[in-house]
C-alpha cells in the first residue's frame, strides 16, 4: 500500500504563500499557528529557492516516539494524526520534529501552551468525520470527502504535490526527465560546498 506524501518542487515554488493562506482559511487555523510555511534559501539573491513545509507525515515519526502521553497515531496510509484530548501541550514533539511542524496556540497569559496543532493532511482527527467538533479541533476532513489537501490542490505552479506517494514520485520523475537532470537544490553540492 502506498503512503500519502507531500513533495515540494523547489524549481517551481514561486514563494507566493498561497498554500499557507489556503491552509489557514480551509482549516480556520487560529492566529499564531501556521500549519504550513514557505522557507526560502538565499532570499533576495539571484537563484533563490523556496519550498513549502508542513508536517511531512514521517514514516518513523519522531513526534510519535517522544510523546509522553502517546496522543499520536498513524493511519495505514502513513498519515500522522493526533488526539487533542490526550495532548498535554508539553512541547516535546516540537523539539523532536525536524520540520517545526507542531505549533501551539497561546491560550492564556504567561505563555501557557495550548493543545498542539499541526497539519493533518486535511484528514481531521479522531472525532466523527465531518463533524463540527472535528472541524473545530482539527480543521476540515477533505480526505473523507475524497479530496486531497487544499494547499497542494490549489498550488498555481503545481510545485506542491500531495497524495499517493507512488503517483507523486511518478509526476516528479517525469518533470526531472523533462528538465534533463536532477535538481541540485538539496543535493550533494548544497550539503558539501567546495
Amino acid at each position, binding site marked *: 500500500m502506498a503512503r500519502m506524501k507531500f513533495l515540494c518542487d523547489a524549481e517551481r515554488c514561486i514563494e507566493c504563500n498561497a498554500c499557507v493562506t489556503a491552509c489557514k482559511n480551509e482549516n480556520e487555523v487560529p492566529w499564531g499557528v501556521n500549519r504550513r510555511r514557505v522557507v526560502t534559501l538565499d532570499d533576495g539573491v539571484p537563484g533563490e529557492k523556496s519550498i513549502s513545509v508542513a508536517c511531512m507525515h514521517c514514516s518513523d515519526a519522531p513526534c510519535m*516516539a517522544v510523546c509522553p502521553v*502517546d496522543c499520536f497515531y498513524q493511519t495505514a496510509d502513513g498519515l500522522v494524526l493526533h488526539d487533542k484530548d490526550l495532548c498535554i501541550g508539553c512541547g516535546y514533539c516540537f523539539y523532536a520534529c525536524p520540520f517545526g511542524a507542531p505549533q501551539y496556540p497561546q491560550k492564556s497569559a504567561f505563555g501557557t501552551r495550548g493543545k498542539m496543532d499541526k497539519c493533518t493532511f486535511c484528514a481531521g482527527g479522531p472525532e*466523527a468525520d465531518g463533524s463540527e467538533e472535528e472541524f473545530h479541533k482539527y480543521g476540515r476532513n477533505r480526505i473523507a470527502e475524497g479530496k*486531497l489537501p487544499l494547499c497542494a490542490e490549489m498550488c498555481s505552479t503545481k510545485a506542491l504535490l500531495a497524495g499517493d506517494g507512488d*503517483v507523486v514520485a511518478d509526476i516528479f520523475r517525469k518533470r526531472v526527465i523533462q528538465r534533463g537532470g536532477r535538481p541540485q537544490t538539496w543535493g550533494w553540492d548544497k550539503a558539501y560546498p567546495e
Partner: protein
Amino acid sequence: MNRVPLLLLGCVAALAGCYERVGDVVLHEPHVYKGKADPLIARMEQPGLRERLRERLVAVQAERERGQP
C-alpha cells in the same frame, strides 16, 4: 460485652471509604495509542476512496498534456 463484631463492622465501614473504582482508569503503555478510534481509518478501507484520491491526484496535480483543457 463483646465488642469485636462492632469493631469489625467499624473497620469494614472505614475501609469502604477507601474504595477506588479502577474501571475508568486508562493505564499507560509506552507507544500505545489509547485515544479515540479515528473513523477515517475504517473509511479508507472501503473500496473506492483510495482510488478516488488517486484519480483526483492525477487529474488535479499532474502535468497537462498539450491540447488538454
